């Protein structure tokens, strides 16, 4: 028996696609709501739902918002630059995955 066998088992909840509210997203990345709204206005993250109180974000939006925060904080990139950088990084990631699938 290993020591961690004695620890309780935590059962989390899966963040399903498009389930995070604006407030939850802010809390999850430690950012203010108006900053998240500016990400939506720049199309950096795209929620489901037309009106702000109906917005729902995906886990992928959370990853993008946190990257955006780091790029702004560490490199001083503005919102348009963040949008471009994240799109290019995502494309790069897709291409790398494709390469792996083709076995290179």
């Amino acid at each position, binding site marked *: 028996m290993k020591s961690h066998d004695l620890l309780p*088992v935590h059962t989390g909840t899966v963040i399903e696609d498009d389930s995070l509210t604006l407030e939850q997203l802010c809390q999850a990345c*430690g950012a203010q709501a108006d900053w998240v709204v500016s990400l939506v206005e720049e199309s950096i993250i795209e929620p489901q739902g037309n009106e702000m109180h109906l917005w729902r974000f995906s*886990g992928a939006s959370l990853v993008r918002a946190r990257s955006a925060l*780091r790029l702004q904080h560490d490199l001083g990139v503005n919102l348009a630059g963040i949008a471009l950088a994240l799109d290019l990084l995502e494309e790069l990631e897709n291409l790398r995955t494709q390469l792996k699938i083709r076995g290179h």
Partner: protein
Amino acid sequence: MQYKDYYKIMGLSRDASQDEIKRSYRKLARKYHPDVSKEQDAEAKFKELGEAYEVLKDPEKRAAYDRLGTNWKAGEDFRPPPNWDEGFEFKGGGDASAFSDFFEQLFGRAGFQPAGRGQHGFHAQGQDSHAKIHIALEDSFQGAMRNISLSTPEMDAQGYVQVKHRSLNIKIPKGIKAGQHIRLSGQGSPGSGGGKAGDLLLEIAFSNHPLYRASGTDIYLDLPVTPWEAALGAKIKVPTPEGSVDLKIPPNSRQGSKLRLKGRGLPAKTPGDFFVVLQIALPPANTEQAKAVYQTMQQELDFNPRLSMGVRQ
């Protein structure tokens, strides 16, 4: 404590102008930023760079650092000379948790804000914390219990950053995909002023598997087949994470052909598919018998794979 050569880290000479320092920082920060860089030690390099810039961008800190002299070598055992900082006043700033003992010895920790990014303060609730965990593909097929270890930097009562290690047993739900998050309520940073603790958000990634690759809910497998199986068609056994299944290879299959086993990918409301990618393996011509078979093919088959290239033979 080891001496750090901040100029060397930034690739600059000691007489670099403030503009050069800024330009060099921007360039290297882009190169080593953990979100952008694929270099292995990018995160460590980025932190080291941040520390060097924190000192060199500030004329006061830079002057004090310069006064240590030029005879130190990077990595050399270092003690600051007495009264080295006489006449300087440093203002805090930066991300204290990231900096080395060398930096702290020189410029202290006072004045630093607790580690963390963005603006905080209006929530009494603790912050959510984040971690990425790698799980085996099989864990998603069957669901699993996994033990994970996390290191979290935390501020103690004196304002020192301590790295705390903890171990958690978590349930991996069936059908989880790479890029999805599991939320563990109350396992994030503790709240302040009686507020409740934040959540721990775990981003899921799959470890490399010797056989399978996942893409969303679809799974890919490279399957070696013989030339006659591909040419004549065959019924063969294929390994899948849920045990082996029968697969019919149609006649005249080609190298790289993709065959789909519907619904045998990751479990979900609409389960993913399992794709078999045929890899034709040639038998070696290492016996007289094998050579004879290849020679027969050479004589009997009119086959030139380079025909479309406009060359003969």
